[in-house]
Structure formats: structure tokens, C-alpha cells
């Protein structure tokens, strides 16, 4: 129980200091981009290996694209009411959209 309480207190402190965590993460993100620009990669297997901060840009844009894709597929195609499969037989003919 003491371990649980201690862990909870540590987490509470981290949540209170979230802005410092945010700043630290942003600083670290800047640092890895800088390191990528400055450091010799040691290999050039693909055309993009020479582009500075390629992975950072790819990850950021990829995340945005995936989130957009989720929204598109979800609202445009696959989202249904939670009881969709449990409706009565008579209602099965309806398309189930909200």
C-alpha cells in the first residue's frame, strides 16, 4: 500500500509540473533534430537519408495524416451505434447511421 501511495504522489507531482515536462520534451525534440542535422548518418541507403530531420518531418506529417485518415474512415464509413449488432431483426434493414 505504501508503494501505491508513493507512486500516486510521484505521479501527482509530475502532473502538477506538466509544463516543465512539456518544455523538456520540446527541448529534447529540438536537440534530436539538431543532432540529426549535425551528425553524419554513416549510411545512405535511400534517397531521403540525406534530408536533414527527415524522420521528424515524416513522423509529424504521418501522425497528422493518420489522424485525418481515422476521422475520414470513422465518420465516413465504419462508425455505428454501439447497439448496432444487437438491434431487433426488424431494424436490421436500416443502415444504422446516427
Amino acid at each position: 500500500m505504501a508503494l501505491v501511495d508513493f507512486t500516486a504522489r510521484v505521479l501527482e507531482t509530475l502532473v502538477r509540473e506538466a509544463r516543465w515536462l512539456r518544455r523538456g520534451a520540446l527541448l529534447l525534440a529540438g536537440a534530436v533534430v539538431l543532432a540529426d542535422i549535425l551528425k553524419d548518418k554513416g549510411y545512405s541507403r535511400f534517397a531521403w537519408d540525406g534530408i536533414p530531420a527527415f524522420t521528424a518531418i515524416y513522423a509529424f506529417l504521418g501522425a497528422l495524416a493518420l489522424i485525418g485518415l481515422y476521422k475520414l474512415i470513422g465518420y465516413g464509413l465504419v462508425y455505428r451505434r454501439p447497439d448496432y449488432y444487437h438491434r431487433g431483426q426488424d431494424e436490421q434493414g436500416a443502415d444504422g447511421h446516427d
Partner: protein
Amino acid sequence: MTEWLHPALLLALGALPLGVLQRRGRQVWQLLLPLLVLASVASLESGTLVTMHLAGLELTPLRADGLSLVFAYIFALILLIGNIFSLQVEDNAQHVAAALYAAAALGATLAGDLVTLYVFWEIMVVASVWLIWRRQQRSAYQAGYRYLIVHALGGMLLFAGVIAYYLHTGSLAFEPLAGSGTAFYLILAAFLINAAAPPLHAWLPDAYPEATVTGTVFLSAFTTKTAVYVLARGFPGTEFLVWLGVGMTLYGVTYAFLVNDIRRLLAYHIISQVGYMVAGVGIGTTLAISGTAAHAFTHILYKALLLMGAGAVLHMTGRSKLTELGGLYRYMPVTFLLYMVGGLSISAFPLFSGFVSKTIIIEAAAEDGRGVIFLLMMLAGVGTFLSTTLKLPWFTFFGKDAGLRPAEAPVNMRVAMGLAALLCFVIGVMPQLLYTILPYTVDYNAYTASHLIKEGQLLLFTGIAFFLLLKHLGGKDKISLDFDWFYRDLGRRWVGSARDIVSTANADIRREFMTGFRRLEAAACRLRVSGWPMRSWPTGSMALWTALVLALLLVFGLGR
């Protein structure tokens, strides 16, 4: 000495006492049995081969080599962790089912011929479905039956494939299969059903979240990973699997983001992670096959850890939907931290197990000059980090306080999660421990500056995108249709329509028949009442009818 002591046989026999032992005795045996099995597997030397003759067939029930032993080790290990997690469960049927399921998975992994493989393949299905049904809810029974039907189909395909293979080659040895022919495709389809490869995957996210809290942990470990093993054994270098695997990685992460149930979200991530392994099998180089085996090993550990975390939340709150959870970090802080170890592992965060296994497969793709595959695998990594390590824990443990005030998970659950987390971390910092048991020598170092910088960028910038769009990313109180819609809705409607047509036709035919029959009955009645058939016929009439009959006989020549 140990050749006759097949680990699967030991485990199957050891499962029987779990049906009758109660409380402390059962708990002790739950811990002791996996340790005995682990010792039995550890005592197998690579190259061990046990053959026997049965009904004129040469069978190899035990084949231990570099590839099969990696899977055997982790199967025995996860049985121990899963048993610790389920110590408090007073349901003997579940414990027996879990042990038999693990025994069958071990048997399939160590099988050296296709008949033995088929037998254990089917035992896996029959044992595992009880882990779903024992939740004893209507939705679990229904999902269990769907699971059973899909796997029965897979079993039939495998059976037909084995017969076709035997007729074609005269051999039952389970070795890499020749690249064409009916047997090749039948067996491949059966394996891909168990690997949950789209569009044959819907049984997994349908059934696993409906299983018991502890059952899901076992389910996540055995069926799909046995499929990965048999694919690696039978179909290395099959080009089609590279693209299928990459498709799986993206399909899984896309659907994982769409669902509201936390265990379903993690179930979709099984498809995604198995996708890396399927792609590794398809690439087929020694580095890729070793990466596949390594990733299966680490995946079983961190996926079990993630599902144990989600299961602990369900066990303590009775809820599993993102829209009904939030703010739990104050009440289940240890569960949260241990879950995060699993999250960082699956996301290939440096110092955790996924980083030293998943990157081998990505590196194998790069070494093979597959640029598009390399980029798509990285994109799937972005999706994995977004949903498993950011979205799920954020909206479960942080986010809007749902007003839940649960106690922390029971001690045995935390110990099981702690053990899995410890292994994720140890493998992450000392990857050589894992690399030494892989089928081929691995000349790969994950901890180079380039790898660390690349992975750091990938994770940090994905995180930035997540927090920028955070308010749009919460769970939605909806379900997401998947391929199971074809048999759960469309198929049911078709069957319903066919049933309506048949039953309408049946009713119409019966009605018409009965109408005719009643008319006949009425006519007969009228005749009987009128007395016409029974009246006396005049002699003139009789002579007339006799003459008529004779005339007809003459006309048609019947009298000749």
C-alpha cells in the same frame, strides 16, 4: 532422458489436476507447472528429433531447433506470467483451458510433421474458446461461437492442405513448402487465418475483448504467434507476405484508433505487430527471420503486459470503454506505470524490448533495399505510439475524471505485470540475452547514434502531433464495422432472407396442397353422402361400358 518427456505432454497432463485442486493447492500448482515446463523446454537441445510410426505414417512429434525453441521458451514463460496474473480466479475450467491451450501451442511449435501440427492446431481452438465462454456473458458466448466457426474453417483448410501435400509429395515433414500448388495455398490460408491477416482477421478483435480478464492474456500469446512460427517455418521468403504484413501493420493501427474499448484497441494492435512479423517472414533473409522470432518473443511479453494493465482496469472498475474511463492514475498508479512500460516497449522506445526487436525487421527491410516497406513500417510505428502509448493511457488514466475510485489491482496481478515489465526492460538494455537464442546469428546493434536519433525524432514528433490535436482524439461511443460485418450483419440478413423465402414457399406449397386436399375430401364426402358410387347400375349401362372398353382395346391394339 528428456526425449520422451515432451513439454506439451507434460503440460497437458499437468493441466488435469487444475480441474480439481482448490485454492492454495491450485495456486501452488499453477506456479509449479509452468516452471516444470520451462525446465523441460530448457533441457531440450537444439537438434533433438523424436520420430514414431503410426498407421503407416512417419511422424515427428518433437523437433527442437533454433526456430522452434525461441517460441517454446516464450510460451512456457508467458504461461507462468499469465498464471500469476490469474491466481485469484476461482474458476477451474479457465485454468485447465489455459494450460491445455498452452500445451497445444507448445505441441504445434515443436511438431516436426504436418499431422502432429494439425492435431495440436485443433486442440488449440477447442481449448482457447473456453477462455472466451467462461466470461459467462451473452456477448462472450456469441463471440466464442463466431471464433469457433472461423477456426473450424481454418482447421478444415489445413486438413485439406495436409492431405493434398501428402498426395503430391508423399511426405508429411513440416519443412519450407514448395511455392505453388493447391496444398501450398490451402495451408497458407489456414496459417493466415490464425495470424489474423486481413480480411481473415475479424475473429481476433471480435473475440479477444469478450474473453475473461485473464483469458485475454493467454489468447494474445498463443494463437497468432503459433501462426507466425508456422509461417516462418513453412513460407520464408514468400514475397506476397511482405506486402500483406505491411498492410497488417497499417490496418491494425488504423482500426486501433477507431475503437472505444481498450481491450479491443489492444487486440487490433496484435494484428499490427503480427504484421511486422509476417513481413519479416516474407523478406526471408536470416536477419529478417531472426527479427521475426525476436519480435514474437518481445511482443508476447509486452502485449501480455498491456492486456494485463487493461484487464486490471476492467477488473477493478468494471469498465473498458475510453468514454467511461479517465483520471485513474491517482487510484491505480502502479498499474499505470507498468502499463506504460508495455506501451514504451511496443512503441520501440529505446531501453525497452520492442526497440531491440522491431528495429531488426525494419533494418532487414532496409538491407534488402525495400524503401517503401521501410517507410510504411515507420508510419505504422507512428500509429502504434499514437494509440497504444498516448491515446489509451491518456484517456484511461488522465483526461477527464470519470469519477471512478477503484482500489489498485490485486497484488498477484501487479506481480505478474511487474515480472513482464522487468523482462521488457532487461531485454531492452541487454538485447544479447535475446539475440543468443535466435535461430540465426544476429549481426545487429540497435544502440547506434543514428538509430537513437531516428527513433527519438519519430516518437517525439508523433507526441507533439498528438498533444496538438488532443481535444479531437478522445474515444467515441460507437463501434467500428470491420470484415465481421459480412457474417454478423450482411450474412445474417442473407440467411434471414433465404430462410424467409424458403419458409414462405414452404407455407404456400403446404397451403395449396391442403386446399386441394380439402377440395378432394369435400368432393369425396359429397359423393359418399349422395350415395352415387354405391347405387345399382342398370344392365344397359354395364353393356355400354363393356363395349366401350373393348372398342378401346381394339383401337390401341391391346388385344393383339
